[in-house]
């Protein structure tokens, strides 16, 4: 797999701590929703750092979009999340990871559970599903610290509930005024309300403790291991 030079076409502010980098990647081979790329930065002295970022865009998109959340004291994410400008160049390698991926022909129902920026690869799946006008039953549960931290908030609100999609949110730190929904971490009773039932393709992405907790709950609720696809974001230096 080769490193390709990507050019930043646009930067979109998603939240106080996250930005989407819209990249033009010549000869990009295409990807499946859910996959990620490695990004490599090279300093003037030759020092290199690599990090993995999930692809946010649908395979149908003409650009490759990565949403980067800034990890405080991180080595790479502060640069990508705060300093990169349109016209800058980055090296990317991918797409990577066929296990955590979904295409409409895989069918459903889908149970997507994201914590924080774990929403990113799940959004690629929902964008792909929308691009294909798929009506595969899909349930998305997003756990965010607050409404400001919820990525793609406007777009999530516009996704059509009539087309077999239901979006659920829980706010773990601060709920918006008048919010009557969930204000706690994902637990068994919450999952039970979202869960389309046994046989669902489950995709869980987020920080490691979040993913560990949710996957254990899914197994306890009767989901089989081979239908639970998980991806963990660890503190690997940000």
């Amino acid at each position, binding site marked *: *797999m080769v490193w390709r030079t990507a050019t930043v076409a646009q930067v979109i502010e998603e939240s106080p701590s996250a930005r989407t980098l819209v990249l033009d990647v010549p000869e990009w081979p295409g990807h499946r929703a859910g996959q*990620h*790329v*490695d990004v490599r930065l090279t300093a003037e002295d030759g020092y290199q750092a*690599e990090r*993995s970022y999930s692809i946010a865009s649908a395979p149908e998109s003409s650009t490759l979009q990565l949403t980067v959340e800034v990890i405080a004291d991180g080595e790479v994410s502060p640069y990508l999340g705060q300093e990169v400008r349109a016209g800058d160049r980055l090296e990317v*390698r*991918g797409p*990577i*990871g*066929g*296990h*955590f991926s979904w295409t409409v022909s895989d069918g459903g129902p889908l149970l997507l559970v994201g914590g924080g920026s774990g929403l990113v690869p799940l959004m690629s799946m929902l964008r792909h599903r929308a691009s294909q006008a798929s009506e595969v039953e899909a349930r998305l549960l997003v756990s965010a610290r607050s409404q400001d931290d919820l990525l793609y908030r406007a777009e999530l609100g516009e996704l059509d509930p009539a087309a077999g999609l239901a979006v659920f949110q829980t706010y773990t730190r601060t709920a918006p005024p008048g919010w009557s929904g969930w204000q706690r971490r994902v637990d068994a009773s919450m999952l039970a309300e979202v869960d389309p039932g046994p046989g669902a393709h489950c995709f869980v992405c987020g920080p*490691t403790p979040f*993913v560990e907790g949710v996957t254990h709950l899914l197994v306890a609720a009767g989901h089989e*291991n081979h239908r639970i*696809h*998980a*991806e*963990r*974001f*660890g*503190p*690997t230096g940000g």
Partner: protein
Amino acid sequence: MDDVHTDGNAIAGLLSQLLAVDATSIARRCQSCGDERPIADHRAYHGAGIVLRCPSCSDVALVIGIGAADVTVELRGTFQVAVGP
């Protein structure tokens, strides 16, 4: 060992330097507990190198050494690698 880990997805880019197929979907049967799970489900512990462990019994599945000049990979257990048409 540090209890903070990621999973097999996180090392797939690295393994793409060595394998012609997607590493995350490779099924590995653990020589210790006998469970067969995809590499994506294994736990990855990051240090000077990377140690991948069985999600069922924590036995070592794979050790990656990252040196200045090369990357070395030691595999344990059986890995079922399939290549599509």
